[in-house]
C-alpha cells in the first residue's frame, strides 16, 4: 500500500517549507509529527505547508493538519498553505482551516507575504 507521505523540509529566508509529496490521510500522521519536530529543533517560527495539486486529502488527513495548526498556534508560529487544488481550497475553507492558516496560490506569493 502506498500510504507514504513524504515531507521534505526546505528553508527559504526565515520560512521553513514542508514540501508534502503524496496524499494526506490518517496514515500521514508520523510524517507530519517528524517534520514538525525537526522544524522545532531548528527553531522555525514561520512554516509553509506545500501540497501537490493532485494530492488526495481526506478528513483523516485534515484532522492531522488541524492538530498541527493547534500546535503552531500554541507555539506562536505562523503557518500558511500553498499548492492546493481549487477543490481542496474549497474544502479547507468549509472546514475553517483558513481562519488559522492563509492559503496562497504560489510559493512566491506565500514567501513574499510571510516575509513581511
Amino acid at each position, binding site marked *: 500500500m502506498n500510504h507514504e507521505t513524504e515531507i521534505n523540509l526546505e528553508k527559504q529566508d526565515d520560512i521553513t517549507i514542508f514540501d508534502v509529496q503524496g496524499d494526506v*490521510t490518517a496514515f500521514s500522521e508520523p510524517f507530519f509529527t517528524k517534520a514538525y519536530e525537526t522544524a522545532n529543533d531548528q527553531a522555525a517560527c514561520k512554516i509553509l505547508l506545500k501540497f501537490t495539486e493532485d494530492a488526495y486529502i*481526506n478528513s483523516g488527513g485534515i*484532522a492531522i493538519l*488541524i492538530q498541527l495548526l*493547534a500546535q503552531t498556534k500554541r507555539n506562536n508560529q505562523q503557518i500558511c498553505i500553498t499548492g492546493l487544488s481549487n477543490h481542496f481550497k474549497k474544502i479547507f475553507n468549509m*472546514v475553517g*482551516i483558513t481562519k488559522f492558516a492563509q492559503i496562497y496560490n504560489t510559493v512566491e506569493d506565500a514567501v513574499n507575504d510571510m516575509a513581511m
Partner: protein
Amino acid sequence: MKPKNSKFVRMLDENTIEVSLPNKLGYERIAMSCSASFAKIVGFLPERVEDLKTAVSEACLNAMEHGNLNHPDKRVLITMDYNDHIFRVSVMDQGEGMGETPEILEEPDIDKKIENLQTPRGLGMFLIKQLVDQVEYNKITDEGHMVRMVLKLTG
C-alpha cells in the same frame, strides 16, 4: 455458483453500477475513481466530479471504520446509478448504523478544535452534507447500513 449471475441480472438495472470492496483503508480510492469515471461519462463537470470523489471517499471511510469496525473480512458495497440528470450513490456497510439520532452529531467548530475543546475528527459527515445535493444516512436495510447521496447534473 449459478444464482450469482442471475441475481446480478435481476437486481441491477441498466443504469446501475456496483462495486464491492474489501474493508481496507486506502481502498476507498477505488470507489472514488469508479464514481469519478461514471460521473464524467454522464457529463459532470470536473469540479462536481471532485465533490463526488470526496463525498464517496468519506462515506467509504466511515463504512470501513464505524460501520465495519475495521474488520478485514467485511465488505463495502457501492451502488451508483444515473437517471434523469440525477446521480445517486449509496455506500453500504455491514454495521448497525449510527443509532437513532445522527442529527445531534456536533457540528465541527474549528475554533474548538484548535483549542482542543473538540476532537479534530468528525469532519466526514459534515463534508458529505456540504458537498452533495442530498444525503440520507442511517438507513438500515436487510443488507446492512446505507448512506445514500444524490448529486444533480445542472447547467
